[in-house]
């Protein structure tokens, strides 16, 4: 064994000059050394079956689940489906362009994708008809026929609405759409937000997405220009007249969802002022607070180095608390366009300092409502996952209220139901798992999604290995089929092709499936476009342009 290891370690060339053939060699060596792996308690195959896993969605949840599952189940074959021709989900389309370091996790994803046991199937949507005309759609039922297990990690592609009057006025935008727009998401590439109607912008919601939107509006465009922000966003932002940003929440600073890093970034923006916070909402004795809220309150109290002034060209922002939006109002001169946002004041109970306080409407009085002038308003009150259309006919449980697939907390799809004896029991869904925002709701940073994805992958590996450890067999999809008959993407593709004459398939045949090599070509083309204008990358903002790279 020692000799084998030295044999593959021997080519003493600097890593930068290694070529692809060496990586193949490395993988071959892997299989020869696996027999001595002491921590590979999970058998590669059950009854001679190779584990075949479909991952729906190529964001961080999908990739981290694939990564962990592949390291826990040797020889597991993972096929990852992505509706767009390009991978990485919110790492590409959600992470702010001025946070390039957060995107470093893509290096790990590329490492996963380079395994011969991993297949990327881009431009193929599952169940939901692709939202772009060039994309293929495969029924979920077809996926269930060809894998041992499926992980739903398709995230949260919709956003919550306020449901108040005037939400459809011109000038009211969804923060999710705005984020997609400046990050070059094809779906929102044509959003064309109008930032020229006035100086005042209102953002409803106080999470990190709200702070990202505020930073895009306040940051020097020349700083953003060097990032991988979409070119159309630079054009629009450079014409922006917005100078004053209100970030509004129903509750107070002790309850706000933003995190300190994003607050600090806003505080540090050169020559951008922060309007001092309402100190009555901050506990007087900061020392008694736990570390994280103590540090956050401290930075909010300290404010920005640049004080607010009356200078006409100064940009500034504030956190406006205890305001619940009630209506978007237009002006008499332009009834179709937003002019002000109306809010009801709230009161916190049991106290403003309780992190779990509720916001109740204040008792009616002359001052119980207020309005903020709003040339533009962004609704930033959370993303929302939706069930795939086939969940209902297949009986896959989705919790509409929380916008998550019902699961056991570790990602096994489960549904609580009342049995014949009137006791509550968990209904099981063999072979179905979920990870990421569709599992736990749209919150948390990439580190949270990683932990979450790992717990799902660990559950999958445990379930697959149960026979080896306990003699009990956890059922998976297609257990009744002979080994070798569960063929993954090969089976799905064959089915989609042969059924092209029928009504339910055929889309794969017409549309172009983008494999990992295809993505690398698109990636290279984007980097080349970026190089020409001094950016790391200039993204393609339409699926046609992405696919055109592939000829």
């Amino acid at each position, binding site marked *: 064994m020692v000799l084998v*290891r*030295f044999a593959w370690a021997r080519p003493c060339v*600097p*890593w930068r000059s290694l070529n692809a053939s060496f*990586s193949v060699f*490395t993988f071959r060596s892997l299989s020869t050394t*696996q027999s001595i792996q002491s921590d590979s308690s999970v058998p590669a195959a059950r009854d001679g079956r190779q584990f075949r896993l479909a991952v729906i969605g190529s964001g961080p949840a999908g990739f981290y689940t694939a990564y962990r599952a592949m390291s826990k189940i040797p020889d597991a074959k993972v096929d990852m489906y992505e509706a767009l021709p390009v991978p990485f989900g919110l790492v590409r389309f959600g992470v702010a362009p001025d946070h390039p370091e957060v995107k470093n*996790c893509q290096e790990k994803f*590329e490492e996963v994708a380079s395994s011969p046991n991993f297949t990327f199937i881009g431009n193929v949507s599952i169940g939901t008809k692709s939202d772009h005309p060039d994309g293929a759609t495969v029924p979920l039922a077809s996926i269930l026929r060809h894998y041992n297990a499926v992980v739903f990690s398709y995230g949260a592609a919709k956003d919550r609405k306020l449901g108040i009057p005037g939400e459809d006025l011109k000038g009211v935008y969804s923060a999710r759409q705005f984020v997609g727009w400046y990050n070059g998401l094809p779906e929102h590439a044509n959003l064309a937000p109008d930032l020229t109607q006035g100086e005042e912008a209102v953002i409803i919601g106080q999470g990190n997405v709200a702070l990202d939107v505020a930073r895009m509006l306040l940051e020097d465009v020349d700083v953003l220009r060097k990032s991988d922000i979409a070119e159309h966003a630079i054009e629009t932002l450079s014409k922006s007249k917005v100078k004053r940003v209100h970030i509004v929440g129903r509750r107070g600073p002790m309850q706000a969802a933003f995190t300190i890093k994003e607050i600090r970034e806003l505080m540090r923006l050169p020559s951008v002022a922060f309007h001092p916070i309402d100190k009555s909402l901050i506990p007087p004795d900061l020392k008694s607070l736990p570390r994280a809220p103590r*540090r956050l309150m401290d930075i909010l109290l300290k404010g920005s180095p640049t004080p607010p002034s009356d200078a006409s060209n100064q940009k500034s922002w504030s956190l406006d608390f205890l305001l619940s939006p009630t209506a978007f109002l237009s002006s008499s001169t332009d009834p179709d366009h937003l002019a002000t946002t109306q809010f009801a004041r709230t009161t916190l109970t049991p106290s403003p300092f309780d992190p779990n306080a509720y916001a109740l409407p204040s008792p009616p009085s002359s001052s119980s409502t207020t309005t903020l002038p709003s040339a533009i308003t962004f609704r930033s009150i959370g993303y929302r996952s939706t069930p795939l259309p086939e969940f209902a006919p297949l009986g896959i449980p989705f919790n509409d209220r929380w916008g998550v697939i019902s699961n056991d907390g570790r990602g096994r799809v489960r549904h609580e139901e009342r049995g014949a004896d009137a006791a509550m029991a968990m209904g099981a869904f063999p072979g179905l798992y979920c990870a990421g925002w569709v599992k736990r709701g749209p919150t948390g940073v990439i580190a949270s999604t990683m932990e979450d994805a790992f717990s799902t992958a660990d559950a999958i590996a445990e379930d697959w290995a149960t026979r080896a450890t306990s003699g009990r067999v956890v059922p998976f999809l297609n257990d009744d089929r002979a080994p070798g008959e569960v063929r993954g993407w090969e089976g799905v593709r064959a089915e989609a092709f042969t059924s092209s004459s029928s009504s339910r398939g055929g889309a794969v045949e017409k549309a172009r499936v983008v494999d990992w090599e295809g993505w690398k070509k698109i990636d290279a083309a984007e980097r080349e476009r970026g190089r020409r204008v001094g950016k790391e990358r200039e993204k393609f903002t339409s699926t046609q342009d992405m696919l055109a790279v592939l000829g």
Partner: protein
Amino acid sequence: MSTPNLLAQTLPILRLTSRRTTGVIALHVRCYTQATAAPLPAGPSRALRTTARRSPLAVHIPKRPFSVSSAVFHGHIQPPKPGEELYVTFIDKEGAEHKFAVSKGDNLLDIAQANDLEMEGACGGSCACSTCHVIVMDQEYYDKMPEPDDDENDMLDLAFGLQETSRLGCQVVMTPELDGLRVKLPSMTRNLQSKDFN
């Protein structure tokens, strides 16, 4: 250089725990040997390190496919010079101790990754996530380290299982004063276990 010679040279400075198998010993030998063979300058600045981590290749330590990138190709873990070894002990999530001889200037994330410990470093060591969170076991050692800056503290605020002596591994650089350092990897948080439902 024959294998027995290598082992003889390397073992005295490794002080491996009894849990480790011969195969794993060989792994360490390989790491250090390879690093000797292909030295690359250690990037002292954060920016440099981030760039250096961008490995265009997938290369994996055989122990677990896709575990962590190998030290062989990062090139920024230097083998310690004889007589200048610094020792650091990692206590993993299962409670097992792993002691390594390292060089001055190595950071804990790089050391953990080079030795196949379960530490991710999702942001590539640029202090933009909390996945390389470690807990320093002795207050005395914690006090010897330069204080965490605001950016590191901001990330620690989001870390699972934060403790008074928590640090980000990518920001802790080994110095002679830290010789003998012991750090613990925080155990993963789990929301609910399946047994809660059965």
